[in-house]
Structure formats: structure tokens, C-alpha cells
């Protein structure tokens, strides 16, 4: 029995060092050399600061001003924001697009609370897009636009969703619709090996491209 315990203890230590330190550290070194950008998180820099990741969705909001022209705050003292119409809007997020604290929305299929939230997402979407697309009805709103993503930072929206938002972007930014559509196409990821998953328009890279004045 004592011999077994010693043998077991040695195995536990050796495997912990090999699999818990050598393996991940060698893989980290290798990844940093072969795919440095990916391994670091596909970060987007501006003026030497990290402002996001091409893989992560983020909020594109602007502060809401009160009557006196000052930023409004809610009861907790947090600034009240609204979707910035100059940007494509990502899918609703339960986590406020947090890239450091993640959790599922856990909205059940038959919960009254789910229906109420979905209705709110839907109304917010219509309020933002309908002025630029008068024929827009709830039935025409793509499902991705009014449902929580899984990760809270889904970078993608559906092509149909992007096509609806494109009319607003073109109008607000005074750009030809054709140019916005071209930018959408340039920031669309296809299916895996042409078959798996769904095409997605990457809102993060698309909005940065708009800001850069890309054509």
C-alpha cells in the first residue's frame, strides 16, 4: 500500500508538470511564433491602445443628453446610452458586450420574460431602422436582430440584417448605398469549407472600416 502511494504520488507530480506546464507553455511559445496575431486575441489597435478584437462584438452606443445638454445618468449613476445611428448595430447582448465577464442570457423558450425582452429588442430595432425602411414589419425583422447571442459578444449579424441596416448607414453617413453594400460584402465571412455554419457580417470590422473611410 505504501509503495502504491509513493508510486501514485510520483505519477501525479510528473503528469502535472508534463501536461500542466510543459504542454501549455510549449504550445504558447509555438502559437506566438507561428500565429502571433491570432494567439494574442486578434486585437485592434488605435494610437497604441487596444480598442477591441476583430473576433468580438462590441457596443456602438452614444451618450443620451438631457434637456440641458449634459449626459444623462440612470438611478445607479451610470451613463444612459442609445444605439449610435452612424454604426451598424450588433445582436443584443445579455452581458453588455463584456469581453471579461461572460455568461449566457439563459432565456427559456416558454418564459413570459423572454417574450417581453424579445419584444423590446424588436421594437428598438424597428425604431432605429423604420425611418430608413418604411416598409419594415416585425415579420421581416431577421431573428438574429432581436435575440440574445450565446457569447454576448457575437461579432456577426446575418446578411439580411446588414442589408436592412445598410439603408440607415448610407443615409446618416451620406454614402452611396452601393458603397455600403460593397463594404458589407468585404466584411462577410462565408460558411466553413463552403458548407458549415451561416455567413456572418462582422460588425466590428465593418464599423472600423466605415470609420477609416474605406471604399
Amino acid at each position: 500500500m505504501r509503495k502504491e502511494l509513493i508510486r501514485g504520488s510520483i505519477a501525479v507530480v510528473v503528469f502535472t508538470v508534463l501536461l500542466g506546464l510543459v504542454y501549455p507553455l510549449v504550445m504558447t511559445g509555438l502559437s506566438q511564433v507561428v500565429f502571433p496575431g491570432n494567439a494574442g486575441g486578434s486585437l485592434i489597435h488605435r494610437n497604441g491602445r487596444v480598442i477591441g478584437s476583430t473576433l468580438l462584438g462590441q457596443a456602438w452606443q452614444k451618450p443620451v443628453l438631457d434637456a440641458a445638454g449634459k449626459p444623462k445618468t440612470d438611478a445607479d449613476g451610470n451613463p444612459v446610452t442609445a444605439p449610435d445611428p452612424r454604426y451598424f448595430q450588433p445582436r443584443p447582448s445579455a452581458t453588455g458586450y463584456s469581453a471579461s465577464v461572460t455568461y449566457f442570457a439563459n432565456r427559456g423558450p416558454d418564459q413570459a420574460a423572454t417574450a417581453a425582452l424579445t419584444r423590446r429588442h424588436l421594437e428598438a430595432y424597428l425604431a432605429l431602422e423604420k425611418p430608413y425602411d418604411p416598409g419594415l414589419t416585425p415579420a421581416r425583422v431577421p431573428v438574429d436582430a432581436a435575440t440574445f447571442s450565446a457569447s454576448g459578444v457575437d461579432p456577426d449579424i446575418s446578411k439580411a440584417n446588414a442589408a436592412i441596416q445598410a439603408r440607415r448607414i448610407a443615409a446618416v453617413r451620406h454614402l452611396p448605398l452601393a458603397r455600403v453594400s460593397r463594404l458589407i460584402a468585404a466584411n462577410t465571412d462565408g460558411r466553413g469549407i463552403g458548407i458549415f455554419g451561416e455567413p456572418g457580417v462582422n460588425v466590428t470590422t465593418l464599423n472600423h472600416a466605415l470609420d477609416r473611410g474605406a471604399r
Partner: protein
Amino acid sequence: MAQGFLQIGVFCAILIAFVPLLGGYMARVFSDERVFLTPVVAPVERGLYRVFGVDPERGQDWKAYARSLLIVSTLFVALLYLILRTQGLHPFNPQGFKSGTWDVSFNTATSFLTNTNWQYYGGETTLSYFSQMAGLAVQNFISAAVAIAVLVALIRGIAARHGDGTVGNFYKDVTRIVLYILVPLSVVATVVLVSQGAVQTLGGTVGGIARGPVASQEAIKLLGTNGGGFFNVNSAYPFENPTAFSNLFQMLIILAIPAALPFTYGRMVGSRRQGWTIFGTMFALFIVSVVVVYVAERHGTPAAHAAGLVGGNLEGKEQRFGIASSSLFTAITTVVSCGAVNTAFESLTGLGGLVPMTNLGYSESVFGGVGSGLYMMLLFVLLAVFIGGLMVGRTPEYLGKKIEPRDVKLVSVGALFTALIALVFTALAVGTKYGRPSVFASGPQGFSESFYAYLSQANNNGSAWAGYTGYVQPNAPGNVGAHGVTFADVMGGFAMLFGRYVPILAVLAVAGSLARKKVAPVGLGTMRTDTPTFGFLLVGVVVLIGALTFLPAFLLGPVVQSLTTHLF
């Protein structure tokens, strides 16, 4: 719809094309034959035996094998618990996380020991890189290797022709499985995942973006059918599963080893048809579950339709995966006892949610966890042989070995114990006030959450209706003030321990019993076990046992939910 079925069809074609090859490779590894990695790995292997003080040529009988297994497991779980409880002292902790509380640490330690990887912990908000690497990732390897070792011992017992009662050497099996199978596959998988954008760095959080050594852990999380995510939202998070292609790759490597093992089995017992029969049985049950969950999710939910949306259910799903690839992943991760998720299970439709539950209700015998899936299926095979033997009125035999009353008793314990744990613990959770703080949803969904929690932990799966919580944390870095729901943590921990080790001991006892038996020659009256007829019988046994055990519980949760559009 057609495009979705194309995804499912092509996936199955890719899978069936490569798993027989992997199965053959593993058979050679388990039989001590030379493989292409031998020149590189053999010196390391011999070095490890010397360090451990193990004579690799010395076989153990099933009791010695079980003793080694239990000792190593106990030491590992103690070390993991210690690491989690003293996290604040360790290096590789750029976010400065504090040590865990006793209840959540107990749940997490048992969870990784048992290959469950239930997530009451929040990966990126509570665990340091050291805990993730030296604690969790090590167990991802070892728990997978231990389960495969138990399976190999059972196969040796079945295949032994003139047995001395030995079933192998535990240390040798675990070492060879880690060195020849798990590590090489993980290295390749890490590189593929990073090439798609998965993160692999020790650089800490920058600009509010949490990072870490994700890809190396992701690789073994999937290959070892563990399923505990580096991030709380698991394979839905873009840093774990960045693209539609990485999602395809993840689905393939989850299924790779469990789907290849039937072919390993066929080779080791000297009859590839036996392997194909078992694979075919598993595949049939798998494909039904994929189709049901996909059709249900395409239909959408009552809540979304009440809100005015028209279309399928994308709540809790990622756009880049879409409904088809999310449904496929959901079916795969629950037939396989993996538990990685790229979709919020809590947000599945009623009928869609019934599919993961049913898959767990098969006691993870349909592909199942690495090793554990096939040993569970082999218990069902023995049960089917016994039932078939009763029907034709002959002493049941399997591959020439008589199945006697003691064997059938052991098989029954192994096959039914996890179901018992799941039901009793669910009853305790919903019948007392202690389970209530964990429940998030109202109506039948609240029952589904509780039931799934104990079903998943007892079966060592680890996927969750994640509204059910065992951990309460303020949403702030540094997890200040975080605490556990002790009842859920402790009950869950024991569900996992019982659900893991009772079947393992039963399987090893069966292996030891079979290893001693003499082989009877095949006669005219011998029931064939390598035919489609036997496959049907096996499907019947698996489905009937699952249905008889769980139907009442299914009725209270997902079945009610899929029969009504009422909102709760």
C-alpha cells in the same frame, strides 16, 4: 432546410471516413504494437516507467488495477482541490484572482476528476492561468486516459483466450494513452484552433479583453470529451471557437475518439463486424437525435413567436454557427459525454431540449465519453445478450464466454446506477427548499433545469441548463464576495463521484470475471452478435431502459413544454 441537412450529411461522411483509421491506430497502441510515433515517444515512455518504478510487463488482476486507479484518482483530486483553494499563492495569475471557496472548489475538483467538467466556476472571472493549466487541463488528460484504460481492461477481459485473470497494467495503459494518443492529437488540434483565431497567451487582460492559454486547453477539452470551458460560455465564445470552420473541427474532434473506439474494439476482439455493429447502433441513435433537435430549433420558440418574430430559434445561438451547426453541436456534445456547448441549452426549444436529456438518458452509451461510452455500451451489449439468451432459451454467451448470474448482476449495477443517482438527487433538489436557490426559470423550465443538472452530473456530461446555478458572483473582476450555493455544489459533487466510480468498479469486476472464463466453441445455437438483427436488439435495450427510467421525468419538463405554447 436542405442546406442544414447537407451540413449534417457531409459531417457524417467526414466522420465515417476517418474514424476507422484512428480506431485501428488506437488498437495498435493498446496491443503494444509499433506505430509511427514509436521512435519519438518510446524513450519518453521508458523514462516515465523508470521514474514511476513500474514494470510495464507485469499485468494486474482487476482488483489490483482498480486499486491503482482509485489511489491515483484520490491523489489527483486532492491536488486539484488544493490548487483551487490556494490559488492566490501561485504564479501565472495576472488578474490576481483569489482562492476559491470550499464548496465550489469541491464541485470543480470532482467535476474535472470525473471527466464531467460541470461549470459552477466561472473560468475567466475566477480561475488563474495556473489553475487552468496545472489544475484543470491536467485532469482533462488524465480523466480521459483513465476512462480509456478501464475500457481497454474490459476489452482485454472479453478478448482473453486462456486467461490468467490479468486485465493489463494501469500505469502503463494511462501512460501509453496520454503519450501516443492524447498529447499528439492535442498538439495538432491546438495549432488548428489557433490558426482560426483561438487565443493562446499568458499576457493577461488587455483593454478589457480577457485572454489566456485557451487553445491548448480547448484541444484536450474536446478530444478528451471533457467540456469545461476556459470561458464561462464555453465554445460559444469567439476566443475558444472563432469561426464556422473551427466549429466543424471542434465537432469532429469531440466525436473522434469515442466514434473510433468501436473499431478499436472490433480489431482487438478479432472481429471487425462486432465493431461495425456497435458503431452502427450508436450512429443510428445519434442521427435520430440530430434530426429531431434541428427540426425543433428550425421551428422556433413560443416566446419569440409571441413577441412577433417569424423564424427559427436563434436565441442563445451564435450567428456564425447558425441553427444547423448549433443543433449538430448540441446533439454531438450530449451523445458524447463531452458537455462543451456552443449554444445556450436553457434557450433551446422544448422539443429541442428533450434531445440532450434523452441522450443523457441513454447513460452516455451512444458514443459517450472517451472510453466510458463504449464500456457503458458493452454493458448494454451483455444485457442484450442475456435478454436474447432468455428469449431463445440458451445460456447466454458473448464471444464464446458464458454470461453468468454474477456477471448480469454486476452489469445491471453498472448500467443502472447513474440513472438512480440522477433521479434521487433531482427529487432531493426539487422536493426540498435547498434546491430552490439554484433555480432561475419558472414553470416546467425550472424543473428541466434542476433535472438536467443532476442528470448531467451523474452521467459525467457537464453541459447545463445554465440558469441553474451553484455559484453566485458579483460581476466584477477579482471575484470579491463570490460564494457558492453549498447544497448544489456538494450534491453535484457526489452525483459525479458516484456516477463515475460505481460503473468503473462494476466494469472492472466484469472484466476480471470474463478474463478468467474459458472460451466455448461457436455452435449452431450461438446467438450472433455481429448482425443488424443484434443491432436492433441493442437499440431496443438501450432505448427501453432509458425510456422506462426517465419517461415520467421527461413528461414533467420538456414534453410539457413542447406540447403547449403557453408562456410561464
